[in-house]
């Protein structure tokens, strides 16, 4: 009887397990095996080079820039996406009707093609776009949005915030809907105003959602690819270069699969360590405040 129950569980989980093995574990193992070789995936000759790929990656300006830029993007995207998605969730939560309609509406950018969004943004920020014409008429000049190292990072950061806010808002919305209404009623009877209620009830009880969104947003910063690929090519002067652009460039443009895999391993390590540190900090902060 017990084995039948277990078998049912395994059967239900099998699609996920199978896809994880096929599309995660096997490629992961294969990538790790590649890092010790100088190989372009097609040559009959695979040259064993030990740890040379790692050494090269550690001294590469391109990798260094990708590493640093991830934290630049993180500094913009993580607070930006937390504030905007929480705000969206609060707005939708307090709507008198059509909540689902608006929630889905805000979720749509997440489903949109990154390339299409990139092309739209490129058009919006083109030198001769109405927006820039307006800026030049009012202020005498318009920023070099995609050619200035600071503006380019901000533009890409805001695109990502816009794309993911609706998705993360759904997580916050689920958290908000799980907070018992009685708590707010009791707080009102005790004389707590909306701000106090938000600070003392909403925020602490949203901690699990906040934690989830934070971890997802941090992870997201290590996977940025489409936006800089379409808009800036990683420039100007590596200002928007990312881990994924570097892996793509090395593996698919320079045909250096081994080196690309070594960079991917560093990317995975940086992602893992960064998420671990941020998790520890947030958990400690939550524990200190009694949120968990």
């Amino acid at each position: 009887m017990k084995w039948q129950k277990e078998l049912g569980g395994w059967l239900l989980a099998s699609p996920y397990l199978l896809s994880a093995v096929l599309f995660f574990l096997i490629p992961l193992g294969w990538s790790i095996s590649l890092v010790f070789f100088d190989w372009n995936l097609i040559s009959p000759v695979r040259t064993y080079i030990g740890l040379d790929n790692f050494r090269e990656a550690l001294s590469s300006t391109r990798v260094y820039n990708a590493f640093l830029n991830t934290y630049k993007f993180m500094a913009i995207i993580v607070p930006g996406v937390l504030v905007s998605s929480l705000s969206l969730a609060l707005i939708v939560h307090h709507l008198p009707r059509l909540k689902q309609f608006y929630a889905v509406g805000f979720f749509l950018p997440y489903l949109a093609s990154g390339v299409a969004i990139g092309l739209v943004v490129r058009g919006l920020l083109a030198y001769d776009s109405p927006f820039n014409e307006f800026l030049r008429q009012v202020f005498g000049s318009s920023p070099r949005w995609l050619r200035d190292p600071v503006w380019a990072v901000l533009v890409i950061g805001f695109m990502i915030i816009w794309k993911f806010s609706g998705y993360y808002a759904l997580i916050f919305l689920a958290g908000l809907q799980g907070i018992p209404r009685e708590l707010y009623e009791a707080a009102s009877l005790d004389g707590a105003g909306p701000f106090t209620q938000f600070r003392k009830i909403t925020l602490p009880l949203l901690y699990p959602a906040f934690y989830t969104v934070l971890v997802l947003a941090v992870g997201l910063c290590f996977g940025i690819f489409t936006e800089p690929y379409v808009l800036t090519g990683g420039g100007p002067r590596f200002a928007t270069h990312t881990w994924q652009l570097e892996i793509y460039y090395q593996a698919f443009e320079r045909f250096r699969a081994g080196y690309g895999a070594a960079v991917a391993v560093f990317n995975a390590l940086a992602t893992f360590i960064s998420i671990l540190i941020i998790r520890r900090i947030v958990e400690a902060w939550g524990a200190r405040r009694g949120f968990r």
Partner: protein
Amino acid sequence: MRILKAAFLGIVVLGMAAAGQVEITFWSAPNPSQEVFWRQMAEAYMAAHPEVKITVSPMPETPTSEAGILAAIAGGVAPTASENVFIGFGSELVRSRALVPWNTFAGWEDLVRARNISATIKCWEFPDGNYYIIPMYVNAMLTAWRIDILRELGYEKPPRTYSEVLALGERLKAVYPDKFLWLRSELEVPTWWQRWFDFFVFYYAASKGQPLITGNTITADDKAAVEVLRFFKALRDKKLLITEPLAEGFEVGKTVMTVLGPWTFPWWKENYPELVYGETFVLSPPPVPDWYPATEPVYTFADAKGVVLYAQTAPEQQKAMWDFIRWVLSDPEHDLLWIKITGMLPARDDVGTNPLFTAYVEEKEPALLPYAKSIAFAVPPIAHPQFVEIQERMGLECIYPVLTGELSPEAGWEAWKTSIKDLLK
């Protein structure tokens, strides 16, 4: 795994041989008109050769056609042959022993003669003396000018030298302050292949086609290269060059010059029918430094690609593909059809002189004539296996710092040469 693959391939080939038919696959470029041409060719060939079945399909376009080919070879599903391979990528494939040399087949010399490519083919010889790529087309890059706007400014023909271009730019700015001479937003982007359509075009023009790299040695003409960088910087400083994206540029007359390949014409015909050769735009070789003799021909970069045969397929399939390709390329009528369908010029020595082509081009596609005349002076991409990084570093170490004023043109050029030394080993 390899043994299993070979066994499977053998069974398939034997099975088809038993049925009396060899099945081969051809990947056309991810360009609908090229696919149409190859499909027509395959159908015509199969009608006369029922023992061969040819499947034509476009090669994967994303992330790049090169990556698509690479993935297919790595996955053991490469086609028998494909087009759209330029000599740089070809070098990488040859280094990986992924290609079969065409000249090992009986009848190679006949093909060279029949297609009239004995001069053109010399640029496609690999260091081992073999020919792994049969050039399909050569697109010499030319500069297009909005002659309607130039006429308004008092010009009857495009400027030839850098000083003349700068003078035209100043006149343009005086009359139309909002217009620019040249839109080249990619000049500030390091993407390697973008250098084909800016620096290489101007460099080959200034240097009389002097190769940038020969084997593992930098053989560039330093004086010409620095002059090109100075010209770019002058255009930028005078606000004649815009490196930010524009929604529309040359097509709507916001800029008056652009570097142009003939593949743009079908798109223009569909979207900008008001652009008429001789009326609204004209073509000229790229501008040259002031000291460049007016009597000398002007060289340019050639976007040239060809057909390769993959080593992964069975010898019977390779032989069948060779017969098909030889049939396609040995008949000048097929090259005429190529021009009619794709609007690009076939890589032939006689494309600018053979009445079969010139009569059609003069009557139907006069804008292709200057391209035909420039083919003899068009230099194909560099063939070094490290072409990607060499060209990427040109943008990063040289062009961007020069444009932003971080480095002088001389220092920028030296910086690029120094930066690629580790790649030339």
